[in-house]
């Protein structure tokens, strides 16, 4: 759901640093050009503004207005009168439990995904950055991280569903029944493996630019100064990569927290996590007194997402210091 694209992921950092790099030069260039071609700029300006209008209207109607509506409906009742009752629904034990489940699933898959993903990034440094294998891994990571959704749920139904290939294989060959203690696959624990299946690739996409930003010169400098490889790891690699790692961890948490499609395809009954609570609130919109609970849930979710993404972008800024 979140972040960068494929190969663009690698170039984003460069692009942004290039962009930031010319930030210092920009004011002077802008002022000099306004001195130089002042009159013609004035003449062209209306046309240039007109060019932005269609985009602005589109974004207004399909991004800004929906955002405000989604967050605003939490504060009005069914008749449009302002109320805080919907927000009180956020204190409902069922909803609190949904937020807790969401947080637990997100935390477990974010930490596990970040660790495995970091190992994959370390492995990727042994491949040519522009080679065919690397391209294939990049493309596969993007597919799984961003476009899987429902299809990843099917993949795991075919693998460890009740009739899944691995489930049957384990029973036939090893005599192990995955579901001896009840079918947990269509419950919250069943989300862990499918979620990991998109979290690890997302980690690869977001963390790889930082790993490829490690300069060989740094390890040479450590070696020249008489340091060991262990010291290079502990004193250089870990401090340089730490902000990127923690930032990616936050992004992974946010990604799992807001992911809907996989859970919706797996769990058709009940609303154990927040996105499924929103589904339930939207579908049962006519239930008396719960008209705008979806809005309150959306607000709660956006608050969590905003905190996570702010942390991510602050850490990202620190990370880019080493990528120039």
């Amino acid at each position, binding site marked *: 759901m979140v972040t960068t694209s494929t190969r663009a992921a690698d*170039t984003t950092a460069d*692009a942004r640093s290039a962009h930031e790099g010319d930030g210092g030069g920009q004011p002077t260039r802008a002022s000099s050009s306004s001195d130089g071609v002042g009159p013609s700029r004035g003449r062209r300006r209306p046309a240039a503004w007109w*060019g*932005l209008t269609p985009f602005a209207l589109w974004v207004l*109607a399909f991004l800004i207005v*929906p955002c405000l509506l*989604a967050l605003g409906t939490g504060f009005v009742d069914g008749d449009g009168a302002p109320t805080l009752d919907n927000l009180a629904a956020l204190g409902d034990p069922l909803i609190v439990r949904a937020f807790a489940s969401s947080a637990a699933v997100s935390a477990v898959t974010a930490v596990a995904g970040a660790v495995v993903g970091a190992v994959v990034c370390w492995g*990727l440094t042994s491949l040519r950055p522009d080679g065919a294998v690397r391209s294939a891994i990049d493309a596969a990571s993007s597919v799984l991280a961003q476009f899987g959704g*429902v299809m990843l749920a099917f993949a795991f139904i075919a693998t460890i569903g009740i009739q899944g290939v691995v489930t049957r294989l384990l029973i036939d060959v090893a005599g192990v029944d995955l579901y001896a203690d009840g079918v947990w696959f269509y419950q919250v624990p069943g989300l862990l493996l499918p979620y990991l299946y998109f979290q690890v690739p997302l980690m690869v996409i977001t963390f790889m630019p930082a790993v490829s930003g490690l300069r060989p010169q740094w390890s040479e400098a450590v070696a020249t100064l008489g340091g060991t490889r262990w010291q290079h790891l502990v004193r250089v690699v870990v401090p340089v990569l730490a902000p990127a790692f923690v930032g990616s961890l936050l992004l992974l948490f946010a990604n799992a927290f807001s992911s809907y499609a996989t859970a*919706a395809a797996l769990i058709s009954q009940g609303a154990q996590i927040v996105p499924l609570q929103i589904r339930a609130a939207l579908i049962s919109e006519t239930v008396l007194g719960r008209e705008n609970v979806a809005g309150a849930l959306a607000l709660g979710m956006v608050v969590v997402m905003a905190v996570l993404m702010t942390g991510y972008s602050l850490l990202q800024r620190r990370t880019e210091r080493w990528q120039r």
Partner: protein
Amino acid sequence: MSARTTGAPRSTTAGGAGTVARRTALVVVGALFAVPIAAMVAFSLRSADGTGHDLNHWLAIVDPENERMYRNLVEGVTNSLLLAVVSALLVLVLLVPAMVLVHLRHPRLVRPLEFVCLVPITVPAIVLVVGLAPVYSVVSRVAGSGAWTLALAYGVTVLPYAYRAVQSDLAATDLRTLTEAARTLGSSWPRTMALVVVPSLRRGLLAAAFITVAVVLGEFTIASLLNRVNLQTALVQVSRSDPYAAVILALISLAFAFVLLLVIGRVGALGAARPIPTRKALS
């Protein structure tokens, strides 16, 4: 060997043993990640009585006798393809000119534009759909409830991906100098756009279009909660009666998305090898 020396200079310091360990890690994780895909293939090849393997489920998909059963699926595929094309056009016709204009004429708006384009990361589809429901009740009154209308929302959800794809090209090209040169030589603005801007940004435009197509083909949240039919909602519906068909189509669409993204990656890699003097190289 030559691959290592040209591609990864750092591996010379890490040594051969490090390379073996790193590649082993890749192979282990890769094998684990191949399990669900392999399971999907094996699942789809199960014979009807569940004992052996055959191609019957694959043949059933293309069997004209099942046309009625898969009618919903055909509608979903058609809608998704239409939505993918319309969304890609929206991105190219609305977002790209706005980005170019801001880049060339309103450098002060670069930050606000970036902020707006990245909003859909913080406001995920499941939240956006809460606000889209009332918007679409207006849209369907004004423009009808044609399947294509959903593309207006899909275009917004792909803004972060498309923005980054185009932005990386925009930052690497000195478009300001190029367009000023074209204008000085007497080219009109439309001509400059067609002959200078679009060719300079072709890799970014291609990447943005392909990513849009891939994201739209995989979209489920908005379509499902607005009660629209697209590929993913149709897959979920079919999976209830015929899980094999759902798994087969999921495999096909994953493969299709993989090919799309592989093309973007290769185009990017080839483009990066092209020795053009970027701004970064100059600074």
